[in-house]
């Protein structure tokens, strides 16, 4: 019985903490995920190179670079929102977004905005595919019937965007050449 109670409390805590996170709004009333990051050890050119690599290599299947200047990168992208029950679930839709990166000496900022949601539906072969081609802005106020489902979508979208942001920051802070060298190291069992 104690274990059941513990499980319910754990699940409830996760749910509550997920509900607390939400997007901020920008000057135009649109949802935005905005981050400013101190980056004293990396110069502007290195940052830009890593951003381009992140967009065109790591996320090449879901992001498309739009414009690049000597201090900024603009891209469009999509991310899949999952409906998860413990470890199993299925995609419930995708969010398209505009991604902006700007660098200055010693720091950079990036944000995701213009987010549109496209719901998925299961096709005749059991695969989840977009139900429509026209996305709904995440800022919309849903009707009473769809309010609960929309809240879940917002929560899932925020978690996914936050995860994306963390991954982006980590990627920019990591020297890929060092990582490659490290991977190539072998372990000898002859001497010990």
């Amino acid at each position: 019985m104690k274990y059941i109670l513990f499980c319910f409390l754990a699940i409830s805590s996760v749910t509550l903490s997920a509900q607390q996170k939400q997007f901020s709004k920008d000057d135009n009333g649109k949802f935005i995920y905005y981050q400013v990051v101190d980056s004293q050890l990396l110069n502007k050119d290195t940052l830009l190179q890593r951003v381009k690599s992140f967009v065109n290599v790591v996320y090449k299947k879901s992001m498309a670079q739009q414009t690049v200047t000597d201090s900024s990168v603009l891209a469009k992208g999509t991310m899949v929102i999952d409906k998860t029950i413990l470890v199993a679930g299925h995609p419930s839709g995708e969010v398209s977004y505009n991604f902006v990166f700007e660098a200055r000496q010693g720091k950079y900022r990036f944000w995701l905005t213009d987010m549109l949601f496209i719901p998925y539906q299961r096709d005749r072969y059991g695969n989840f595919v977009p139900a429509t081609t026209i996305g709904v802005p995440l800022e919309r106020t849903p009707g009473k019937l769809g309010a609960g489902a929309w809240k879940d979508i917002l929560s899932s979208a925020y978690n996914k965007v936050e995860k994306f942001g963390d991954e982006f920051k980590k990627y920019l802070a990591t020297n890929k050449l060092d990582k490659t060298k490290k991977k190539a190291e072998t372990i000898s069992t002859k001497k010990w």
Partner: protein
Amino acid sequence: MKKLLTAIFTMASTTCALAQETTSSPLEISGSVDTYFKYDFAKNPLNAKTSFVTDHNSVSLGMIDIALKKKTGKASFVGELSFGPRGQSQSIPDAAAGGSSFNIQNLYVNYDFTDEFSMTAGYMGTFIGYEVISPVGNFNYSTSYLFTNGPFQNAGIKATYKFSDKVSLMAGVFNDWNVYSATRGVSAVGGQLMVAPVEGWTAYINALSGAGFGGYGTIVDLTTSYQITEKFKLGLNAANYDIKDSSVPGSYAGAALYPQYAVADAVTIGLRGEYFKVKAAGAVPETAFTAVTLTANIKSGGLTFIPEVRLDHNSDKPFFNKSGAAAPNGGQFSLAAVYAF
């Protein structure tokens, strides 16, 4: 209880750990449950001439449908089973078990050789037609004559090449319709050309020739839908099926139009207008049906309420009136509840 919980958490942790070490996606679980009430205006259940929604003045079952999907690297599988009248006795390939077993909706493996080229083998929902067995895949709860008379599922091997997001081509060899194992060998060839000329508009031109209903035959089918605005969507299905032996009944031709309009966030109203002709064969004369179905989809989370009014007409009087006499018109009201997860 302690052991059970430990086992569940161990399995969950193992799956998570494995997912981190390989390129596999998590196991996808999805499905649906549906139930309905139908009232036939002539109080006669025999007036239903298309699949499912058969009972009169009864709260009846559709089916419970459970689908699993897993992708590891370039390989994936889908397994989908359904239980209940819609997925069992009314879904054809269950004759050997007297309609008492489950029905496999999909059971196939797929391999993506490249981003453009993939191959699939197994038992799959048919690529022909607009409507499907699963109520989640249809806007209307009752089904069209084109759906009822066409194939439901095909077992076979198919290859798909995606030229771009706007064009793809599928070709394959298949068993006869709706059987888990071939009764006349791998005896049909089929293909599908998908084109998406403008954003929101997708058209599938399908053909299947070989062993099918009524012997050997060829079906040619056009299935298309166009999301014209955020609120308005238009769908069309047209098909022609000819059985090689013209004395065998079962050849048909028809078309159905599906306009749908979202009147609110959670409410969409749609119409299905259909013309369906069963071709003359031997001594059996030609006969034609027209049907109009007015349907609403009211969504709240995973639940969809589907109120529907349907009117059918055939001048050869295949329907029955309240007194049991032959009649040219049939009509029904139904209210269905479909939950998708």
